[in-house]
């Protein structure tokens, strides 16, 4: 089922507003930096794509960490935009679906209570557990952003929180099913994730997924020199309605799947997930993993369904890999690029590797009105989303 998008918002490494970040994407800017929030000199992966702003002051700060606060900001903004486009709903007919990628230990958050502990675990309470803040568990609760947003909006309809690398896509899929089933009239989908935590950078580099290159030598996905992706972070939100409800910016279809592999999914899985949403599309936003073998496999399977001449971009070359927020960011970025009649180039692509599809080295004009986007994650997870623009002037934004 395809649904209408009537509101959108994000916080990304290229900017906090859609117009700003899409403008920078189309200008060929890349968010990668070696100036992160913490010292990375001793790390194998030393670069990332951080959000440069800080969350606004919020009454929810005692319950939410930084990325959750960004998630709430994006969700509120998306709903506000939806309201300006005639979407009026609250209460039991508004559902909230969340994708949360941060199911990690967050070691540094725990050091205050744990740095005095002994390996043999003697006297754990006296050595620090008694100093844990009463809200410590709530602050790390997976569905706290979902709960606080529901309370903010008096949203009492269907909803759930999904975790992991493709959680945003799973939240999107659940929202579409709920709209299809008629249990809600409007769905607010939001997702947030940061791969820029000390423990995540260490792990991604050890797995060979993240780049270990210096910033000056960073190669883009689909480049012959590609050597791993740039970890990033983002929060994004979409407001969805059933088709024909009015006020649509674009329509969207989503699918997710997997094959149970411990690391990245196989090419057959990517092909199967893409085939579930593709419909004669000639533009594809690739998963952009920047690992030559995986990039080639991906191009080959996509050529099988889209044709060898389909144009290939990779918004994650500019934004960084965004984990659970990826699908929503791809949808917003591509929808707005199509609305402007311009396809984004693959930022930093110098020498495309051999293979099918046409990797875009620079932004170029297009009359395409739809695009397919893919993303992947471990263990064996794949997600696809198809975007078709319905209101190009609104997506074009302010002049």
């Amino acid at each position: 089922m395809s649904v209408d998008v009537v509101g959108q918002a994000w916080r990304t490494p290229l900017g906090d507003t859609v117009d700003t970040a899409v403008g920078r994407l189309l200008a060929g800017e890349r968010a990668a930096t070696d100036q992160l929030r913490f010292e990375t000199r001793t790390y194998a992966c030393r670069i990332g794509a951080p959000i440069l702003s800080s969350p606004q002051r919020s009454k929810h700060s005692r319950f939410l960490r930084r990325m959750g606060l960004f998630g709430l900001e994006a969700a509120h903004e998306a709903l506000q935009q939806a309201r300006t486009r005639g979407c009026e709903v609250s209460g039991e007919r508004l559902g909230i679906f969340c994708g949360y990628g941060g199911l990690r230990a967050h070691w540094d958050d725990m050091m205050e209570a744990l740095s005095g502990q002994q390996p043999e675990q003697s006297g754990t309470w006296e050595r620090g557990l008694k100093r844990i803040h009463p809200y410590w568990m709530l602050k790390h609760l997976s569905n706290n952003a979902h709960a606080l947003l529901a309370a903010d909006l008096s949203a009492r309809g269907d909803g759930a929180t999904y975790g992991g690398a493709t959680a945003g896509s799973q939240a999107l899929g659940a929202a579409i099913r709920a709209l299809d089933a008629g249990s809600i009239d409007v769905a607010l989908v939001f997702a947030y994730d940061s791969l820029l935590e000390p423990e995540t950078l260490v792990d991604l580099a050890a797995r060979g997924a993240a780049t270990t290159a210096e910033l000056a030598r960073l190669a883009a996905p689909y480049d012959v020199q590609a050597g791993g992706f740039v970890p990033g972070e983002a929060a994004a939100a979409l407001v969805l309605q059933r088709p024909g409800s009015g006020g649509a910016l674009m329509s969207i279809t989503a699918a997710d799947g997997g094959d149970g592999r411990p690391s990245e999914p196989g090419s057959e899985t990517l092909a199967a997930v893409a085939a579930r949403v593709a419909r004669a599309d000639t533009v594809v936003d690739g998963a952009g993993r920047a690992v030559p073998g995986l990039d080639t496999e991906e191009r080959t399977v996509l050529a099988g369904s889209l044709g060898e001449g389909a144009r290939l971009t990779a918004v994650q070359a500019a934004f960084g890999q965004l984990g659970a927020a990826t699908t929503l960011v791809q949808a917003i970025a591509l929808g707005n690029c199509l609305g402007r009649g311009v396809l984004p180039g693959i930022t930093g692509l110098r020498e495309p590797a051999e293979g099918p599809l046409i990797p875009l080295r620079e932004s170029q004009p297009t009359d395409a009105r739809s695009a397919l986007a893919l993303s992947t994650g471990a263990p064996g997870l794949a997600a696809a989303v198809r975007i078709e623009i319905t209101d190009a002037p609104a997506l074009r934004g302010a002049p």
Partner: protein
Amino acid sequence: MSRAVITGCGIVSALGLGTRAFWNALSEGRAAVGPIRHFDASKLPTRVAGEVPVLETNGTWLREALGGHLSEVAIEAWEQSGALRDRKIGFGWVAALEAWRQAGCGDDGQDTWLSMALGLEQAFLEDFGPLLRKEGGRPSIDWAAESGAPLPRVRFRSRIDLCAEGLTSMLRLGGPVIPHVSACAAGTLAVAHAASLIERGAATRVLCGASDSMVNPLGLGGMSRLGAPSPRAEPDACRPFDRRRDGLVIGEGAAMFVVESEERALARGALPLARILGWGSTQDAYRATAPLPDGAMAKRAMQQALKRAGLSARDIGYVNAHGTGTPLNDPAEARAIREVLGHVPVSSIKGAVGHLMAASGAVELAACLLPFQRDCLPGTAHHRERDPECDIDVIGERPREAHVDTVLSNSFGFGGQNATIILGRWS
């Protein structure tokens, strides 16, 4: 539209390993909350729990339980990763293997999806050993980057990913993994999601359920600071719907189910344990730590489930309540049950096994199979004194004999996440 049926069930709880131990204990009215034994909890504010009777934390029990499902090389790899000592990962694996076996599934998991919840606790005190050995300065993750030693990968991986990797490897599952993280409603939502996939034809078989364990110093310490557990360190500390209730008791365990389309199950000669008839999901939109006092949205979740199942209130023969034994939750839920379903038999098994957090909905759904298996409704351990604020037909400590065809289970999570699911007898 395909109908979703449960063809396999596996359970790990304080009442023992396996469905037989679980159903035997429930039908005999036994409870298993007691002093924590697998580590020294004597100085913690919370010293009782629904502890699974497996005391080793070095994975020996799990190694034995997995015999035949993983090669020795694979077991050693998991041991190295540290996954074997994470109790919730082990419980999830053992429950899934039992469900898989009970369903009669063989080496054909390629088209099987995995929809599960796993407790979100990601770290253990013992993981800090290497960090604490850093000389001088504040212990930090930098040690791992600087040391040059082999990276202790488990310390950085999501536990739910590790659990899923083990299951897909053991059972050769080839479908997507859907991690549910909606707090204490997650287990119920994982099963509802599975049924939804079957009904819509998106999947033909889903291994689903939940596993959790917070029975460790960090989990109990954090919950104690939050103030949710009963202050009493006694085996009857959790008293659902009782006038003297004063808080929850933490439990641990897992329940996993094989859910598939009725057509496929019958075609391969499997005998379904139950039908999944309907489910509902709502949000309180109220507070992070307290339910909506009037139970309005819990009520709405039950109404949604009835509507989806095409049933009326009088069709429901038994309710397995969320029933945490906390002062606020029980009256709100009781009011919702009374207003939607009237005078229906209700019980909570949390007095017997504790509150299994993310896994609570799944294990309680397994308890909902007992009426179909043995014409027996589980009792409510430690419910002795009726509370006028909870004006419903609470089944007391002794189970009740009854033949019912339709049962309903509630799960309500932190943040006001409500989920209800309805099962029907298969015949």
